[in-house]
């Protein structure tokens, strides 16, 4: 199983400003301290080994879209955020090399940041493509059609040439989709959201749980999530806010914190947690700090096997 992150930012896509790039270059030049590099490989080694991730790269700014390579040849994609545009183009390259044109989407919910990539999803114009949109929401089709109405977008939904199907999923039921076992769970979020548990034929499991608030007064029901996350190889989790923000100013905004994600994964004995759905007001340094603090919190509260805490970024690939 291979998990590929095409969009990791929450709520609103963002892009670094010119000043943010200048700051990175200035930082890198100062860190190099006059050093000369023989070639690009040597310079790249310096960036990879001697600069922090925030200094030498970026977490990216596309909204949620995660590809899971699993099953028997078709695509598996969680959410249609702005990262979907890049995935769509890359999949067409792979299709030209013989990949199946069957796309299995799993929609956490229908808010804009999770569907805005679909009007720019080039394979939707391919009459040879099959697009199956799995959702717990009965109004998934309405949401996708509505965002392509003339007032919002110039290309109506009915102009799309692919065979587009909507498949309703119920929490508590287990499904088999092209060689992958799929389960879903209802999450607390405005208009509801759904988490997904995908298990391939080798028994590798990834959890996609974003836009999920774990309410202060309902901590007892977290047992359902611990069971849903049980012994997963990778849990992709909404970690948009600090714990303090999630129980104060941003309570009821529908999101969770890095600390709650670590605790749920610890109890579920998951192997790896990917911090996800990054706050759009955060710069790279802010996200890196949150990542370092999450690793430290995991160490301080560990009472069992270690949990690997990684931080998702646009372009990250995780092989399980």
């Amino acid at each position: 199983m291979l998990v590929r992150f095409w969009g990791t930012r929450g709520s609103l896509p963002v892009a670094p400003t010119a000043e943010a790039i200048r700051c990175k270059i200035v930082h890198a030049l100062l860190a190099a301290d006059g050093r000369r590099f023989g070639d690009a490989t040597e310079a790249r080694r310096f960036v990879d080994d001697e600069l922090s991730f925030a200094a030498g790269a970026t977490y990216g700014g596309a909204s949620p879209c995660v590809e899971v390579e699993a099953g028997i040849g078709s695509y598996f994609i969680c959410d249609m955020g702005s990262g979907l545009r890049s995935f769509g183009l890359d999949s067409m390259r792979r299709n030209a090399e013989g990949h199946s044109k069957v796309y299995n989407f799993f929609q956490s919910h229908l808010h804009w940041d999770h569907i805005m990539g679909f009007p720019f999803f080039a394979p939707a114009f391919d009459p040879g493509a099959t697009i199956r949109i799995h959702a717990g929401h009965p109004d998934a089709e309405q949401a996708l059609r509505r965002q392509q109405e003339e007032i919002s977008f110039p290309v109506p939904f009915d102009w799309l040439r692919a065979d587009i199907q909507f498949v309703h999923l119920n929490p508590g039921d287990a499904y088999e989709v092209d060689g992958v076992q799929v389960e879903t769970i209802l999450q607390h979020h405005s208009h509801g959201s759904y988490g997904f548990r995908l298990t391939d034929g080798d028994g590798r499991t990834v959890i996609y749980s974003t836009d999920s608030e774990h309410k202060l007064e309902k901590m007892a029901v977290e047992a359902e999530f611990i069971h849903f996350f049980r012994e997963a190889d990778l849990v992709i989790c909404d970690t948009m806010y600090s714990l303090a923000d999630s129980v104060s100013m941003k309570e009821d905004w529908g999101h969770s914190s890095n600390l709650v994600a670590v605790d749920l994964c610890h109890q579920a004995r998951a192997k790896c947690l990917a911090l996800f759905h990054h706050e759009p007001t955060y710069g790279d340094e802010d996200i890196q700090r949150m990542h370092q603090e999450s690793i430290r919190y995991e160490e301080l509260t560990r009472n069992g096997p270690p949990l690997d805490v990684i931080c998702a970024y646009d372009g990250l690939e995780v092989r399980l």
Partner: protein
Amino acid sequence: MEYSFELREYAVIVHVDGRVDESSWEAFGAGLSDAVRQASQAGVAKVVINLAELDYMSSRGLRVLTVAKREGDEAGIAMLLASPNDIMSEILAISRYDKLFTITDTIEAK
């Protein structure tokens, strides 16, 4: 996790040691509610939670603090955190709870 109460003239002090995590948060929360009630009955305006002997507190324990703080606010009782050891200081900073609560160096917060 174990806790005990100490009534002083200015506050109910809650001494807590061990771990406040998934196995103990409910008992800890019940204890804090009890501390708010005792403070109200005794006519003192504060509950001070002594964090010096805690091994750690997970998000469950931290969230219970928020619930208890709200109960205190409704009863006119202020909730303070006191004497955090190094681990608790770190957890309060990571969670940003140091922005939500008044934290004092000692339990003598009058």
